[in-house]
């Protein structure tokens, strides 16, 4: 039983880390991959999601609906931001980084002025279950399950819908997409809105586990940023999955071998090695390899 608890503990931690990174990074990688914008205000969109979840929850709305409302609210905020500011900085990595960092400061300081340093937390639902002498939170497994559902949903949207095809094409060559009748301005706004909505949902989900404050986003942005850069923008789904599996794996391993802090160092080390070998991220390498393989099979 003791060995089972130990092995289950490792798996539980791995799934928890995977869920955390996917939730934190999924919105960000869509915006980066599709629009070439590093959105440093993504954490603040998550923070907006957390506040909407808290306010609606304490107004009597059930938590799952409150989290969905957080997604809607953050999505609308994202579309407004895109129309007013972001659209002037497409494919300008450095400028977009500085501008969105400024936006993140405005949001966090604005919320601090309006709502104060923190608001009432939401209790974590579902409780715990014991194995041997250890206890495990059920909600962490729910987070993992929802992160999987989220990535499956994003994959389905970008693979099977016309919007997804238009978005992927716009990402690759916006000028040609325009010349084929696609309104790329709408595609950009909707894509940014979708990325922001995912951030809002993630914020709502994390609001049930963390202190809700104006600086809520700072807990997630750096790790999400690393996940996105390691994954690369060539294919958001394969990039995100490959990056998360590698980073969460190394973090879990080192975490158990040494401790939590060194676990984070292990994750950073893994990111560093991957970026040294694949400077444009894992997905760029996988996409090139796929095209080479298909080209070779086409010649046979």
């Amino acid at each position, binding site marked *: 039983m003791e060995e089972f608890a130990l092995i289950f503990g490792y798996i539980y931690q791995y799934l928890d880390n995977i869920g955390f990174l996917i939730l934190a990074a999924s919105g960000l990688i869509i915006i980066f991959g599709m629009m070439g914008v590093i959105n440093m205000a993504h954490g603040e969109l998550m923070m907006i999601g957390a506040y909407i979840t808290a306010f609606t929850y304490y107004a009597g709305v059930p938590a799952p609906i409150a989290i969905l409302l957080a997604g809607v609210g953050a999505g609308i905020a994202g579309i407004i931001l895109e129309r007013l500011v972001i659209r002037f900085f497409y494919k300008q990595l450095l400028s977009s980084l500085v501008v969105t960092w400024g936006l993140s400061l405005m949001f966090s300081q604005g919320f601090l002025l309006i709502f104060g340093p923190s608001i009432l937390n939401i209790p974590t639902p579902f409780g715990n279950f014991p194995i041997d002498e250890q206890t495990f939170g059920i909600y962490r497994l729910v987070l993992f399950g929802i992160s999987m559902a989220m990535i499956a949903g994003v994959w389905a949207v970008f693979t099977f819908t016309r919007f997804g*095809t238009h978005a*992927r094409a716009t990402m690759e060559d916006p000028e040609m997409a325009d010349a084929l009748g696609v309104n790329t301005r709408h595609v950009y706004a909707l894509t940014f809105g979708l990325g922001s909505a995912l951030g809002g949902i993630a914020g709502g989900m994390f609001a049930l586990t963390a202190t809700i404050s104006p600086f809520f986003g700072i807990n997630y942005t750096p790790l999400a940023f690393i996940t996105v850069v390691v994954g690369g923008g060539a294919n958001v789904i394969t990039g995100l999955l490959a990056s998360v599996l590698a980073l969460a794996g190394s973090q879990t391993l080192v975490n158990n071998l040494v401790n939590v802090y060194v676990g984070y160092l292990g994750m950073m080390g893994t990111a560093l090695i991957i970026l040294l070998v694949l400077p444009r991220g894992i997905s760029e390498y996988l996409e090139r390899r796929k095209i080479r393989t298909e080209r070779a099979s086409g010649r046979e």
Partner: protein
Amino acid sequence: MPLNVSNLYSGYGRVRIVQDVTMSVGEGEILAVIGRNGVGKTTLMKTLVGLLGTLHGTIEFRDQDISRMHASRRARLGIGYVPQGRGLFTRLSVGDNLVMGERVGGIGATNRRRVFQFFPILEERLSQKAGSLSGGEQQQLAFGRILAGHPELILLDEPSEGIQPNIVQEIGRIIQRLRHEEGLTVVIVEQNLELIHAVADRCIVMDKGKIIAELTADEIKEPEVAKRYLAIAT
């Protein structure tokens, strides 16, 4: 008249590349735009499509002034564009590239049956990434993508570039079929004289951003004319 251009000026920033171009293309006509490298042929095409702004003058498509219209709206009116280098979405599958063409003409439904009649190889390669196709197959996909929509006017920018000679002949036959079977009007920028001879009803010659001559298809076949306007020794 599908396309009427009057006193058109366009370029990059304040630099005027296309200068005082006036031209028109008749229903079902194939008009070739020829000239040496760097004389503004591609700039003219991009301006007609809407990827470059009109600095001065007017562009009319079916009597509607489209000079200030966004590129995506021009495409939905029925202007199909195959750019130099083909402009395929190499990371998308062949099928998804065809989906991307369906808005040309504004109907919004993919006409795959027609595409596969013209280019049967695309049906076999449907799930393959466009970037993995051979040069000739990619050119077929670039044409097929436009046909997946409902274009009335097709603008082709050097379709023979980087293509094997036997496939260039095939492209010529395809352009003729597009005119005869689909009634399409075509403007083609090209340096390949063989292809121009095969398809063009009329040629305009550009130099330094201006139209300097208009030739019949027979005139361009004369070696002296080709040498003068294209600097090609035949």
